[in-house]
């Protein structure tokens, strides 16, 4: 009889001991991230019936369970992925904006300084010091554009390094999960719940979610299969596929994230990565960086082209026609490396730099038709012939037709910021003067005066012989320059254009025989007329309908706005993540106060069980003493 009590006491002692151990383990892991609290499941020991009475046999520990809610954990995984993506992109954008928007030394300030130096030179066009100052200001502006271009490249390199690290993380976690799957399946097969292994696997999935978004499907054997947001399997049972980075075969400058499935690289589209730091990094790389690069590049191309065009209309200090001020920007374009017909070549030139869009383009040949896609907004233009004139670009293909499905990449302004450079090196090469000058003949008796003389094209610089405008009777005039003659009737204040060289505006009343001479502008080192035209570019609509400074402030607003929105998104996702983690933790986390009360509870049970054994011993002793 007392053996019954003893065995009940023993079972109670063992149960209390197990419960105390479990509580102790919970307390020990109270601060372990990813730890799921455990609780003991106690069931009464199957009783025996003796003489119609059913007697309990004590207690058994049926199981030590993880207190776990699979749905909440999945939700926390998703929230982790989205929050990591937002955080990664926000961090990159915040750094990016700081690199470009310094009001004192940024691109905007150097553009202002360049035009300031131009204005300064209009005061004393012959002063070598003022000319040198303009060259320095222009050089600094170009250097700032170059800096910005190489900073973008640095961001791209840094982004690639981070992506490499992330793929290492993903592969390590995927491998760990696959191995854990194996061990968990094995343990479950032998009927044991491997709580710590399950915790380890959940932690690995959480770490993985920080890098890339996955969804989980639990199998009947306890293993978990992981799928990426695009449906691609990452972990199946004890097998896993590696995530890799590779260059896009259609565009060697683009990096693709993909999965290596049995030796084959399967790329994931940037918008299908879903979440995780990889998603944020890829979005930054494929959207934010190119856009900034294209906007800065467009600014550089518009600026250089506008300044060059006007500069070529002037004469330099030595009376020679002005050349390019900046090295002429070159549009980048190349055929995709995997094209079927490698002979087809593409060439792109700028026809109207004021119309440029801050975007890359792609041409695809399919079904006998060429389709030009503007990548920034997806606008498409089709043509049956291999030539496009679009957005200020002239695009032509040579050695056509390409193979069906061939494509061509056009990056008209991408590298322009990095490549902006001065074409002139000597202060004397600045074309400050106009190439032609007009004067009234001293014998004029009429009251004609010269109001304006504008240069129409670089042809003005090589007038074969000075032009003579002679008035005849009744306000008629004849302009003669070598063999070229042009006649007309004069109206005061009305510009008279000649031979696409110059346009002259006269006022007053002419007398027959009055003469205006228009000739090469020799020795005019103090002439600032071309400089005055150059300074007008500061407020002229040279960048898609707006001025340079307005275009630059739009870039600032864009970069700042992107960074701000990314911060908002980051904060919002962080809030969602906190809520998900709280929900998960409220089920699975350890509460020390709770454990303290359990401790009291099981300690008391233990003491009572011990007391029971003592009682059994006393009973046994009593019985023994009866026999004495």
């Amino acid at each position, binding site marked *: 009889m007392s053996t019954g009590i003893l065995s009940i006491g023993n079972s109670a002692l063992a149960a209390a001991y197990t419960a105390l151990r479990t509580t102790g383990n919970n307390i020990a892991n109270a601060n372990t991230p990813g730890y799921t609290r455990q609780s003991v499941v106690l069931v009464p020991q199957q009783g025996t019936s003796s003489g119609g009475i059913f007697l309990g046999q004590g207690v058994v520990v049926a199981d030590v369970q993880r207190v776990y809610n699979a749905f909440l954990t999945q939700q926390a995984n998703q929230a982790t992925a989205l929050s990591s993506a937002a955080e990664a992109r926000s961090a990159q954008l915040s750094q990016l904006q700081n690199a470009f928007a310094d009001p004192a030394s940024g691109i905007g300030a150097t553009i202002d300084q360049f035009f300031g130096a131009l*204005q300064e030179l*209009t005061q004393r066009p012959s002063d070598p010091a003022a000319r040198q100052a303009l060259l320095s200001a222009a050089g600094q502006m170009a250097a700032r554009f170059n800096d910005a271009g190489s900073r973008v490249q640095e961001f791209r390199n840094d982004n690639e390094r981070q992506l490499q690290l992330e793929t290492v993380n993903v592969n390590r976690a995927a491998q760990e999960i696959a191995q854990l799957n194996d061990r968990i399946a094995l343990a479950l097969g032998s009927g044991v719940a491997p709580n710590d292994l399950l915790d380890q696997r959940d932690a690995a999935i959480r770490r993985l979610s920080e890098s890339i978004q996955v969804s989980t499907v639990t199998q009947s054997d306890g293993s978990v299969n992981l799928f990426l947001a695009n449906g691609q399997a990452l972990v199946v049972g004890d097998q896993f596929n590696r995530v890799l980075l590779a260059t896009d075969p259609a565009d060697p400058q683009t990096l693709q994230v993909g999965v290596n499935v049995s030796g084959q690289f399967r790329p994931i589209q940037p918008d299908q990565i879903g979440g995780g730091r990889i998603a944020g990094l890829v979005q930054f790389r494929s959207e934010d960086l190119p856009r900034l690069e294209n906007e800065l590049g467009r600014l550089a191309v518009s600026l250089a082209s506008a300044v060059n065009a006007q500069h070529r209309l002037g004469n330099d200090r030595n009376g020679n026609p002005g050349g390019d001020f900046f090295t002429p920007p070159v549009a980048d374009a190349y055929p995709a490396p995997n094209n079927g017909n490698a002979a087809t070549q593409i060439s792109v030139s700028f026809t109207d730099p004021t119309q440029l869009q801050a975007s890359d383009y792609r041409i695809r040949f399919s079904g006998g038709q060429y389709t030009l896609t503007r990548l920034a907004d997806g606008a498409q233009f089709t043509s049956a012939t291999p030539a496009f004139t679009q957005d200020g670009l002239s695009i032509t293909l040579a050695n056509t037709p390409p193979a069906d499905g061939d494509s061509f990449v056009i990056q008209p302004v991408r590298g322009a910021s990095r490549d902006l450079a001065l074409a002139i090196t000597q202060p004397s090469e600045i074309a400050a003067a106009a190439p032609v*000058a007009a004067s009234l003949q001293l014998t004029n008796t009429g009251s004609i005066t010269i109001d304006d003389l504008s240069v129409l094209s670089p042809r003005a610089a090589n007038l074969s012989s000075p032009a003579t405008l002679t008035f005849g009777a009744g306000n008629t005039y004849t302009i003669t320059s070598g063999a070229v003659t042009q006649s007309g009737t004069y109206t005061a204040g009305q510009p008279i254009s000649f031979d696409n060289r110059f346009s002259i505006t006269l006022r007053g009343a002419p007398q027959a025989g009055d003469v205006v001479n228009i000739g090469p502008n020799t*020795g*005019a080192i103090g002439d600032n007329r071309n400089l005055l035209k150059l300074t007008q570019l500061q407020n002229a609509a040279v960048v898609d309908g707006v001025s340079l400074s307005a275009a630059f402030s739009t870039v600032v607003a864009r970069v700042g706005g992107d960074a701000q929105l990314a911060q908002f998104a980051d904060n919002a996702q962080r809030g969602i993540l906190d809520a998900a983690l*709280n929900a998960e933790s409220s089920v699975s986390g350890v*509460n020390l106060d709770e454990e*303290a009360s359990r401790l009291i509870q099981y300690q008391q049970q233990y003491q009572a069980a011990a007391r029971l054994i003592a009682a059994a011993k006393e009973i046994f002793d009593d019985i023994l003493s009866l026999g004495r």
Partner: protein
Amino acid sequence: MQRVSTLMYYTAGERAISARQSELLAAQAQLSSGRRIAAPSDDPIGAATGTALRAGISQLDQFKGNQSHARFLLNQSENSVAQFTNTAQAARDQLLGAANGTNSDQERQIFARDLESLLAQMVGLANAADGIGGFLFAGAREAAAPFGQSGSVVSYSGDANEQRLEVSNNRYVQVKFTGDDVFLKTRPGNGTFTTAAAATNTGTGVIDPGGVTDPSQLTGSAYTIDFDGTQFVVTRASDGTQFTFAPGSGGTTALQFDGLRVTVNGAPAAADRFTIQPAGYQSIFDTMAQAIAALKTTGTDAAARARINTTLGGAIASVDQALDHLVLKRAQIGASLAELDGYEQLNDDRNLEYQGRLSAIEDVDFAQAASELTRRQTTFEAAIKSYSSISRLSLFDFL
């Protein structure tokens, strides 16, 4: 009721405290830097507006520089033209004295020498330097002094390029006046035509510079006036049309035709000839040279005196035209300066306005920022105090 896990409690508390702390730091950074926008993301539109305003201010600064340079040049030009006008006035006075018909050859020589020295002074003034390495009246050819003198012949090597500067957005002010415009483009005679006596004249007839009576009838043609002993025959050179006039009483004949009028005083001899030429441009230097040449002509007979007096009369009229022209140029310089006054005012007003707007966008409102800092300080204190006091509670303390 939601269970609260201990780990969650600590993490949440820690996160809340660090969030409050970073808010507090942001407020403190605003106050210490004085800048409301530390990065464009703080206010993208504000940052962009700030960039545009800064570009505007930089341009206004440049306009200010141009304005002061314009003023510098215009003041010098004004001064030089004023001095030149005084010299021309002195030359006119000399010419008036010289035109007295009773002067001897010797007396005229003295006048000639005086005029030569005045001419040299005029050339000197017209070659005035601009104070920055160039010349005020050379146009764009500032490498060398624009006026050269050889004997009494003055040549101009400058050009007609009038330097302008942008002194306000798209507003240009002429800051340099060329020698061509100021000294060369003057009309001789009465401004419309010049009169002269033929060198072969033997009578004492002196033709005056004449004048315009009806501008609408002017033909722009040259004329010859021949005295055939009984009457004056005027021939219009362009088509040969002739007008005849009888000599007037008292030795004064007024000839009026084609909207103009000239007067011949004295007694011309038969076959004496006078000419009328439409006025082209004649520099004041050339006028002076003509007068000097006339004064140096010897001969005290009545006919010679008459020819000299005709020339001097024409020269005085030409100098008067030149003086009028100089007054006009001074007025133009003055107008440029007056225009500058307006633009300087406009520029300063706009600069003030831009600075104000920039400050409103980028600078911290200190009162607001300070109260914000205090508010965040209170929140932060509440967070750390509540966290530390609650985290001290544990059931284990009571076991």
